[in-house]
């Protein structure tokens, strides 16, 4: 009997914790993206709202790192885009060196408004970089990802306010 109860409990616990991510993601602009980002992270299943926000900020950091790598690679391939790439490099470094640390510290310490500011700014920096290419950006899909992730993250951070 004990074994049965354990299996039952485990499955119930699994169901209820998946619900936490779902409940949270329902209140964001992109449910599917939100769920997939949080579900794929091992911390997701046991995180509270702050924890979920911190996971997403980590994703922002990862995406910014990836984009910065892409930018660096483009200097050689597309030297005519140098000016735009310089601006993008500055903007993505801001995301990594300013926005992400600010948001991480703020959410960990319970002053989420600075977390919101950092997340909003990450979206701004990505949009500014994209605009540099005047419609012919080699980074569009990365930028769109960043916009989507920052929008979802912001919605979750706002739940802490």
């Amino acid at each position, binding site marked *: 009997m004990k074994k049965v109860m354990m299996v*039952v409990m485990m499955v119930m616990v699994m169901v209820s914790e998946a619900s936490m991510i779902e409940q949270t993601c*329902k209140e964001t602009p992109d449910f599917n993206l939100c769920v997939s980002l949080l579900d794929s992270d091992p911390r997701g299943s046991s995180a509270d709202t702050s924890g979920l926000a911190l996971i997403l900020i980590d994703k922002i950091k990862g995406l910014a790192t990836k984009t910065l790598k892409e930018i660096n690679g483009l200097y050689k391939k597309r030297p005519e885009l140098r000016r735009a790439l310089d601006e993008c490099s500055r903007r993505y470094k801001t995301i990594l060196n300013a926005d992400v640390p600010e948001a991480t510290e703020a959410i960990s310490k319970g002053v989420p408004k600075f977390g919101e500011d950092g997340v909003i700014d990450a979206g701004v920096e990505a949009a500014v970089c994209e*605009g540099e290419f005047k419609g012919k950006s080699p980074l569009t899909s990365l930028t769109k990802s960043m916009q989507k992730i920052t929008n979802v993250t912001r919605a979750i951070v706002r739940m802490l306010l």
Partner: protein
Amino acid sequence: MASSESLLPVSSQQDPLSDSRCDSIPESRRRRPIKVHLAIYSGFLLIALYVTLIITHGGSAPKNDVNEDTTVESRARLAGVSEKSNVHISKLSNDLRGEAFAWNNTVLSWQRTAFHFQPEKNWMNDPNGPLYYKGWYHFFYQYNPNAAVWGDIVWGHAVSKDLINWLHLPLAMVPDQWYDANGVWTGSATFLDDGSIVMLYTGSTDKFVQVQNLAYPEDPEDPLLVKWTKFSGNPVLVPPPGIGAKDFRDPTTAWKTSDGKWRITIGSKINRTGISIIYDTTDFKTYEKHDTLLHQVPNTGMWECVDFYPVSKTKNKGLDTSVNGPDVKHIVKASMDDTRIDHYAIGTYDESSATWVPDNPSIDVGISTGLRYDYGKFYASKTFYDQHKGRRILWSWIGESDSEAADVQKGWSSVQGIPRTVVLDTKTGKNLVQWPVKEIESLRLRSKKFHMKVEPGTVAPVDVGPADQLDIEAVFKIKKDDLDVVFGDDSVEDDKEFSCETSGGATVRGALGPFGFSVLADESLSEQTQVYFYVTKGKDSKLKSFFCTDTSRSTMANDVVKPVYGSFVPVLKGEKLTMRILVDHSIIEAFGQGGRTCITSRVYPTKSIYGATKLFLFNNAIDATITASFKVWHMNSAFIRPFSADDLGVPSST
């Protein structure tokens, strides 16, 4: 949601099936196969339930896949957020099609202010513990010694003789104890009866809990109060039961109760209700919490930086925080975490119950249509009683409206507003009046007087030379004939829908407005910030006036926030329309009707800088000719620099 009850019908159905299979098995061993089948079956059921949940949730998920062009509105509704707090995003996403302005050091260094308090570099936020002691005004502030964004917070410190010129001192407090290891946050000062100072401040502990701590000057004989001692018994207050560990911060200055105790209040929240908790103490070390709250307002979210103080109903002077009596109203102010707006309300304090009720509950603290100290960029404000000159003075954190990339590049972020005196408006009784401290007039240099008539649809240059450090005081009159025409004309409708923020800014023309000044404008007006009145014909043919600042064309740059700010401004019978504007590089402070409606804005022009900055008077009304009588002073820079021994008149060898 699956529960164990759902297993019962299953098990009762199972038994007959499993029984029939177990004929040949002895009874004692029959139980195990049944249990295994039960477990498997219920497992499948739960999985089936889970899958169903996913499918139904997936179906009801918000359809609003992020589409940059849309619907800041729908996103706002989904995130449960008012449109206003999404202003930043909406203003930017529409605008980021072209190249960003490539911020360079020349343009960025112009942004630094000449006479607003700011540290030499890095990030600043809330004002802390302002006070006057032994001949010096003291100002402390939230500071990041390491970066131009919020983080690693310590207490900065500066002193002044006149609230305008400042001398930077060493950091007053840093996170060197377990109870403030993660941040030395906002706090307030109280003077005890013997004239000594106690400071209460919030610490973020090594476990991220928000607690209140006591500190006091290490050497009360040092007028500069350079060194501070933290009480060995800290923390003196921890989050009480029912209050979140991260929802407990920003203790106020204490005030005396009628039985001689000290009383403080600390903002917090319970679910979405903003609250203010009351404690009494005799020694600032042990406290009794009241069961009742000072006040609470549903749906306002976390109350940060609560402030509570008396104002005189009849006199234009400040009152010590402990003053009470029939001649007095009390102000409750809170900074709304959710919207980054400082709200206040006027009401009555009941000493015996330690509660406060607003005069007008429909505009209670935090209600979106309620009163604000300032309708622009302005937060975390704090008052103190200046016993030296008998004034109540308001400090305010003015953050940046640009991108963090620019802040990092220029190496600093945020300024403080010019300290303002605060009194109750004895004429209306319904709002406060704020005004820059008189000491700022010491920065006035040469001035020029003007008297100009401006026809509808005209922009007139105002010849004052360089125009990025100005103090402007102006009186406006609408030509009486034009007013009569407008009032007689039934086709000119009541502009019921007007609001500074949503009515399109200074280019949208009405019968009687907008008119005012274009500051930080370049010759061709490609960049300008307009500070103006918009007068409408209200109910019963009464005039209704609004005071606004339009920053939407303040810069060509598209990675900054450029809202239109403002609000209704009370104008009483017989009063002329008056405004005052302080222009100081990237900050503009505007005061309507003697400080009844105030607007602070941050602007970042790319062309209208240095010698290219000009001033214009404009009248964009359709029907009214305006006369403006005004004076423009050039403003000197204040000295805001590190303290040196010379400042005390003491030889540097000491």
